């Protein structure tokens, strides 16, 4: 069976959930081979997880290079050359998209970006915030495919996870140098793209302090917290929580929008949520057009009451 290269996304010795999704999706195309690029000692911590999700092989490329993303691109390009894989799968993130783009031009492969499903010969895109679904096929060998986190249900599968050490070729061109790195650490709440419930706040929340109303409700539901761009731009909430066209695309079971008008660019990031609840003072707010249940009212009255009800039910 053909190999499928899966780039492992990891932080502090932990594999990101998106990687397990890639390993699951890869099985539609062939046998998953995990590719680990990182500082010395990385692979040891990851091998167990990769084994449990079906990696037949683990290519280990350890390097302390400060070249930004070039080691990943070069290692994958070399493996594409030597192993002739059926495809290369990479998770959608800023780094993932960049690695994919650079790899595609370097190996002259098709690039299928931000797909939500992978088949044997084609992949599915969800475009314009889910307004269209499109099927695309690749016209080259070893297509490079980036998969949107949260689109595939993870399945366990035992893999042999046979390790093979590979060289890190130095790039042909010049690379940007990493001077420092401050990863965002998750905190106690679920990841936005992985959460089954999200409570988001907009400009209507009014201030950073008052976002505690959004957080309180979120915590009672075990939910992630999101924000509109207006809320982020006003400094109410950090930008990695922005939902929408230029923020995250989410599709949870339940999305609760507090003080969000529902501009088209916000809806583009959340309108495929299964159930949408909106609270807004303005009965004309466009968010109500897509809300399964809407309350015209003051979020500072409605949200705490809902939080209380949820707490009561939990007992």
């Amino acid at each position, binding site marked *: 069976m053909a190999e499928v290269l899966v780039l492992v996304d990891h932080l502090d010795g932990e594999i990101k959930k998106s990687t397990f999704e890639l390993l699951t999706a890869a099985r539609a195309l062939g046998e998953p081979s995990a590719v680990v690029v990182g500082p010395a000692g990385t692979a040891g911590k990851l091998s167990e997880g990769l084994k449990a999700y079906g990696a037949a092989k683990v290519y280990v490329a350890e390097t302390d290079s400060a070249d930004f993303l070039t080691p990943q691109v070069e290692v994958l390009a070399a493996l594409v050359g030597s192993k002739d894989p059926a495809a290369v799968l990479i998770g959608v993130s800023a780094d993932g998209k960049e690695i994919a783009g650079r790899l595609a031009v370097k190996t002259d*492969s098709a690039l299928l970006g931000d797909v939500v499903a992978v088949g044997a010969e084609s992949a599915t895109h969800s475009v314009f915030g889910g307004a269209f679904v*499109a099927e695309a096929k690749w016209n080259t060998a070893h297509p490079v495919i980036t998969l949107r986190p949260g689109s595939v249900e993870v399945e366990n599968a035992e893999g042999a996870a046979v390790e093979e050490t590979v060289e890190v070729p130095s790039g042909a061109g010049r690379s940007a140098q990493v001077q420092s790195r401050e990863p965002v650490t998750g905190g106690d709440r679920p990841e936005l793209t992985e959460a089954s419930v999200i409570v988001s706040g907009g400009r209507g929340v009014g201030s950073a302090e008052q976002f505690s109303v959004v957080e309180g409700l979120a915590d009672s539901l075990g939910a992630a917290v999101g924000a509109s761009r207006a809320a982020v731009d006003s400094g109410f909430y950090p930008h990695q929580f922005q939902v929408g066209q230029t923020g995250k695309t989410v599709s949870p079971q339940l999305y609760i929008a507090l003080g969000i008008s529902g501009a088209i660019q916000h809806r583009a990031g959340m309108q495929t949520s299964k159930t949408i609840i909106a609270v807004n003072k303005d009965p004309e707010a466009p968010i109500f057009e897509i809300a*399964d249940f809407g309350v015209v009212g003051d979020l500072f009255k409605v949200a705490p009451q809902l939080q209380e009800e949820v707490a009561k039910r939990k007992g």
Partner: protein
Amino acid sequence: MNIVVLVKQVPDTYSERKLSSGDHTLDRDATDAVLDEIDERAVESALQLKEANDGSEVTVVAMGPDRATDAIRKALSMGADKAVHLSDEAIHGTDAIGTAKALVKVLGTLEGTDLVLAGNEASDGRTGAVPAMVAELLGLPSLTHARELTVDGGTVTVRRETDDGVTVLTAELPAVVSVNEKINEPRYPSFKGIMAAKKKPVTTLTLADAGIEPSDVGLSAAWSTVTESNPKPPKSGGEKVEDEGDGGSKIAAFLVGQKLI
């Protein structure tokens, strides 16, 4: 410093966007077209660098249909000095790889470029791949998603801010930098700027002028092909109630009914 800004004309995100039923490409006639908001920010960054570095020049480069001249004029009226427009019937349907390859050819027609600026992600496709691809093809350092950008002598420093955190990157010029939506607020063109833009030079190139093989661009050259596209029925609204002091309880009841809590 010679700065080139890659700008793209995109459908206005405030209008409804469609895929055309024929070849599944973006139906550009169905929507208003504008200079992408993210590229306005890239132009703004270029202008700020120009203002801080005497003797600098800002050139905008766009690949797209004839009407992309509107986007080019907008960049010129903000203050860019000149423009190059790759415009050819044959580019319709070009994908990200083809776009990057074609832009690299256009960049090859310009001399002494120190810095290539771009938006991190166009609002029409969410590819967010072109700037890094251009850098890879040119063998230049790629510094993407800049929230802050400084150039000091021959060194560019970028504070790269993404959902995953902050990375500080440096590189020697020439380099490719893409900016994120938080980097600045783009200026509005002044009346003077709009008048001046009408006289600024815009070089229009065909594929042949730029040395691009027609077989390398367009739908037929695409590295991937969209075989099918379908609109998804828009979600419709459900029940809407006025809060009469029981709004929170009513939501709770609804969620219980849906077995969500």
